[in-house]
């Protein structure tokens, strides 16, 4: 651990940490800007004419209407003007308008995001609660039956597509045994928390995807730390094995897991897309899937931007957590 704050050495370290964080935030902003350019390029690549898509297939008979529409939404301007116009809207929180659902993308997100946050949040916590002890157990009993069993288990759930897992769960627990519902709760967020019967299968499906990843990381993280010098020192000082494992190895092994949760957002988002589609659970993933089927591009691109920003912030937080939690990172930077 570094010395107490206030000593000259540690202030220098604090300063390098601040510089590192500033640079990292700046980098994140640049990445988000590039994401907006990519999204805008996709927006421009949409086949066909937006005016005709919105006004209907017979609009071509009335060029004046099309011209008016293009002028009103700025489609007659050069592409970079359009980009900055669009970026300006974006900065004001205007993510676009779904002409197909006749609703702004922001309000659509407002009703769908909380559902996905609940689903993703509960399943991540569940996955962590199961994966951490199992990873520790595997590391302690490495190359024994327990280790092999759970390694096989994580291989299986890495390879099994989540829609297959979800479908099998439905067939077994809903269709055959009638324990849980086959469709996710449809109401608001409160409904999600009370309707455990319908909520269980979507949560378990999504948790199984991340569980495979978390337990493998936990196992290798534990194994990395078990061979470190400070563990040998602790053992040499006569600390009981249990205390060494929990106080020393486990605490340090949890650092990469903390960052993994931040970096794992895209995996959870993609998992949520499939899981929500399997269980008709009206979250962002389901909205995205339906919009892809309906070719509702404003919604698709709005969600794309939001997911990308969430991912960038997630990895930023992961980096910050790593720099703050692990004192060795600061030594490297100074």
């Amino acid at each position, binding site marked *: 651990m570094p010395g107490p704050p206030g000593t000259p050495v540690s202030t220098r370290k604090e300063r390098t940490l601040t510089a590192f964080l500033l640079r990292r935030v700046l980098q994140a902003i640049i990445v988000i800007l590039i994401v907006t350019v990519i999204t805008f390029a996709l927006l421009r690549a949409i086949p066909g004419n937006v005016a005709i898509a919105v006004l209907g297939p017979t609009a071509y008979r009335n060029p004046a209407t099309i011209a008016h529409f293009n002028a009103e939404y700025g489609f007659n301007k050069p592409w970079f003007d359009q980009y900055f116009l669009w970026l300006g809207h974006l900065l004001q929180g205007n993510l676009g308008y779904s002409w197909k659902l006749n609703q702004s993308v922001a309000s659509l997100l407002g009703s769908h995001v909380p559902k996905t946050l609940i689903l993703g949040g509960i399943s991540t916590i569940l996955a962590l609660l199961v994966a951490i002890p199992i990873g520790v157990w595997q590391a302690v009993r490495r190359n024994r039956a327990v280790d092999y069993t759970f390694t096989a288990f994580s291989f299986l759930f*890495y390879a099994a597509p989540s829609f*297959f897992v979800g479908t099998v769960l439905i067939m077994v627990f809903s269709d055959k045994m009638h324990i849980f519902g086959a469709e996710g709760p449809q109401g608001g967020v409160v409904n999600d928390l009370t309707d455990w019967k319908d909520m269980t299968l979507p949560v378990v499906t999504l948790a199984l995807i991340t569980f495979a990843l978390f337990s493998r990381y936990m196992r290798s993280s534990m194994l990395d730390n078990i061979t470190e010098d400070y563990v040998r020192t602790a053992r040499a000082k006569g600390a009981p094995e249990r205390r060494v494992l929990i106080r020393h190895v486990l605490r340090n092994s949890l650092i990469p897991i903390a960052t993994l949760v931040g970096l794992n957002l895209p995996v959870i988002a993609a998992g949520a897309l499939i899981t929500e589609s399997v269980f008709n659970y009206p979250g962002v993933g389901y909205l*995205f899937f339906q919009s892809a089927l309906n070719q509702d591009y404003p919604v698709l691109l709005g969600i794309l931007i939001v997911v990308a920003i969430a991912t960038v912030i997630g990895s930023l937080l992961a980096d910050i957590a790593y720099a703050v939690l692990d004192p060795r990172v600061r030594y490297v930077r100074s």
Partner: protein
Amino acid sequence: MTTPPSPSEPLAPGLGTIVPEQAPGEVAPGGVPEGKARSLFVRGLEVFLENKLAIVGVAILVAMVLFCYIGPLLYHTDQVHVHLANEDLAPGAGHPLGTDSSGYDVLGRLMAGGQVSLEVGLAAGFLATVLGTVWGAVAGYAGGIVDAVMMRLVDAMLAIPTLFLALVVVSMFPATETELIIVVALTSWLTTSRLIRGEALSLRVRDYVQAMKVMGGGGTRAVFRHIAPNAVGTIIVNATFQVADAILLVVALSYLGLGVQPPKTDWGGMLSNGVQYTYDGYWWLIYPAGICIVLVVIAINFIGDALRDAFEVRLQRR
């Protein structure tokens, strides 16, 4: 790995380096280097073959390829014309795995769909690896502002989950097999490019690359003759996982109804069709295709893990 080195191998560290011993151009990508390095290849192969899971993986994969490509020659089914009179028959005489809602024989469809899944996955994984390798090698070799710009683009694309990006593109342009390959490749080369960039950063300061530069060799030569061949271990291992991921991505797109269009299908499309009959208990529309996907992806992962171990042996000898 703690296996003792065989007598034919150089014991001094550094002597086993693969590239300085051969003129540039002698190594075909993924090819076997000549001379002393050859024993490293043999050693790597031994490590690969010692891995029981790798053997299992290869066996599963070979069996699957035989099933999908030789199977239809022995087991003839009509996978083009719809036979509604035969829809959703349970497994029995004439149809070992029953029929689906269009009357297609499921066993025959597994073979036909498997061809599409395997081909699209393999092609997309290969294309993604090539793209990522070139991008990463160029960025890492160029360094400076070029590297920064190229890698920020990778960061930005990585921020968009692959499935989301692929779904947007596929919803814009209805998918044929070729388009699926391109979309999957264009959305999944990013991790490869990061790995190869890392390798390129360390390779570009090596003496032999510097020597080549002094002799007037250009950037293209450095990237294709020195950096890419030297990163071959990383590339091959990564390509393996790329293929597995590509198969899963294509299967997911097909499951969502935006993959291969009927009458063609792949394993994901078969599952997508079968899921509509979950409550009718038509298990034969769900389990066979699902199990095929799981088996192939697990097999490729076993092979990838074993390849990684095999190449680590070569790295240790460097």
